[in-house]
């Protein structure tokens, strides 16, 4: 067991481990809605859209998290506003905002010299650079997001499963959709330091997709997804330590590995399980 515990003698490793697990769980839980509502593209867009906010905050020597948060909220609002008027479809609106925000971010960053290192940290994460303060902010934001999801479980279920029923029950569907977007934005921002904007989309989708194959009810899907997210965060970080590879990639690859296991061997929906059942 010693080799497993050895990395944790370092403070940065302890903090990184905690951050990876928190982010893994958070992404996996909000990811359930992303998978069920078919919003994978939205999650990806949101992730890239925070780049200009981070870049501007960096230039102004402000807090990167705050910059990211402001940018993600602007983009979430923009997409909602443009697609709500009905003049263009939502995925078109996402495509436009996503590309524009990413370009703006790259344009700003490329104007600054010595951007290479920081950019790669934003794109792929730097979980080992998490400070105690970062960890505290991450934990607080994560608890906030999870609390909102818990409180709004019923309305989120109805707007995701049957928006028509939500409307006939006079639920404030537009507002609820907006709240969900803000939660996704917060999640992306929290995940920026751990897995980076380039890979957060995978953490939003992959554990939840695996859980979708394994669960029959929504509460179970949440729990399974969260477990996969936590295990991926923890195992990915250890792998990155021993194999000396980027932590964000290791976390995402581990989650992908679990997804393939679920895809093949899920008790009801697994490809091999179904074939096996047909044989016997």
């Amino acid at each position, binding site marked *: 067991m010693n080799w497993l515990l050895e990395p944790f003698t370092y403070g940065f490793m302890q903090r990184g481990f905690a951050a990876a697990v928190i982010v893994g769980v958070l992404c996996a839980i909000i990811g359930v809605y992303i998978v069920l509502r078919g919003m994978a593209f939205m999650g990806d867009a949101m992730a890239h859209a925070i780049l200009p906010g981070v870049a501007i905050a960096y230039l102004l020597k402000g807090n990167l998290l705050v910059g990211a948060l402001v940018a993600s909220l602007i983009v979430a609002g923009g997409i909602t506003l443009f697609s709500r008027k009905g003049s263009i479809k939502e995925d078109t609106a996402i495509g436009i905002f996503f590309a524009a925000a990413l370009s703006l971010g790259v344009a700003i960053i490329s104007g600054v010299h010595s951007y290479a290192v920081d950019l790669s940290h934003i794109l792929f994460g730097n979980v080992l650079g998490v400070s105690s303060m970062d960890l505290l902010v991450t934990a607080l934001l994560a608890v906030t997001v999870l609390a909102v999801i818990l*409180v709004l479980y019923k309305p989120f279920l*109805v707007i995701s499963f049957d928006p028509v*029923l939500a409307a*006939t029950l006079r*639920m404030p569907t537009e507002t609820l959709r907006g709240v969900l977007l803000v939660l996704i934005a917060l999640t992306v921002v929290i995940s920026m330091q751990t897995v980076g904007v380039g890979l957060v989309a995978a953490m939003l989708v992959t554990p939840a997709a695996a859980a979708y194959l394994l669960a*029959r*009810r929504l509460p179970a899907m949440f729990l399974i997804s969260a477990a996969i997210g936590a295990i991926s965060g923890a195992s990915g970080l250890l792998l990155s330590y021993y194999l000396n590879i980027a932590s964000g990639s290791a976390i995402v690859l581990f989650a992908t590995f679990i997804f393939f296991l679920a895809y093949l061997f899920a008790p009801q929906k697994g490809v091999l399980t179904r074939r096996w059942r047909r044989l016997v």
Partner: protein
Amino acid sequence: MNHTLPIDPARLEFRNVSVKYGSRHAIEDVSIQVPHGARGAVVGPNGAGKSTLFKALVSLLPLDTGNIYIHGRPLGHHLDCVAYVPQREEVDWHFPVTVRDVVMMGRYGRLGLLKQPGQKDRTAVDRALQQMEIDHLSNRSIQDLSGGQQQRVFLARALAQQPHILVMDEPFNGVDAITRDATLRLLKDLTTRDVTMMVSTHDFLLAREHFDLVLLINRKVIAFGTPVEVFTTEHVSLAFQSQMMLIDGALVVDQCCGDEEHTHIHGGEE
């Protein structure tokens, strides 16, 4: 033309209702009164605005002109008294919820956004499941259900809502005999409980046998009244135009039901 019936007290009233899709009127100047506890069938060719009429009633579509009154008050005053059973294709049947979960959603309007279901809600759900004969399926995933069973889940959910007005969009389209009978029994049962019903259907015979009132519509109201008053050659030919033929004194309407259905011939003799 005035299609209103002199029946009092009218509890569901459409007054000069028009709804637009883009620049085109989907329904135009619809004025009808449905008395409390009546069973109303809505009949008309495809694209006649049957679904539009229902969606306007449950506030899914905004009214262009006119207003809809429930118990004498405009839409919005009675927040949870209309239940809507949409066509089955409108939801994702692979969603990870059980039959019971879906029926419980019918209670959410009463619970509000934050309150958790209590004993009263569970009892209402149990009763709705039993009435639609799906209590043995209550813990099944909805993706394991047949089409007819899915339909009955929707009906049970509407029952759990305990509505004053029940709106069903094509509940008899492509369902098995058990579901058809269960739906008809439900109509009869709800009538005794003074629930007003508006049901769209392609089936003239069914509309004539099981409904008190028929609304024949093709964007505008063609006829509204008892089945005998409405199903005349004149009215039906006005509504269906080229889709209708008169063969040996029997009215034959060719109603092609869009994507899933093939050409159906339904007889409705004079």
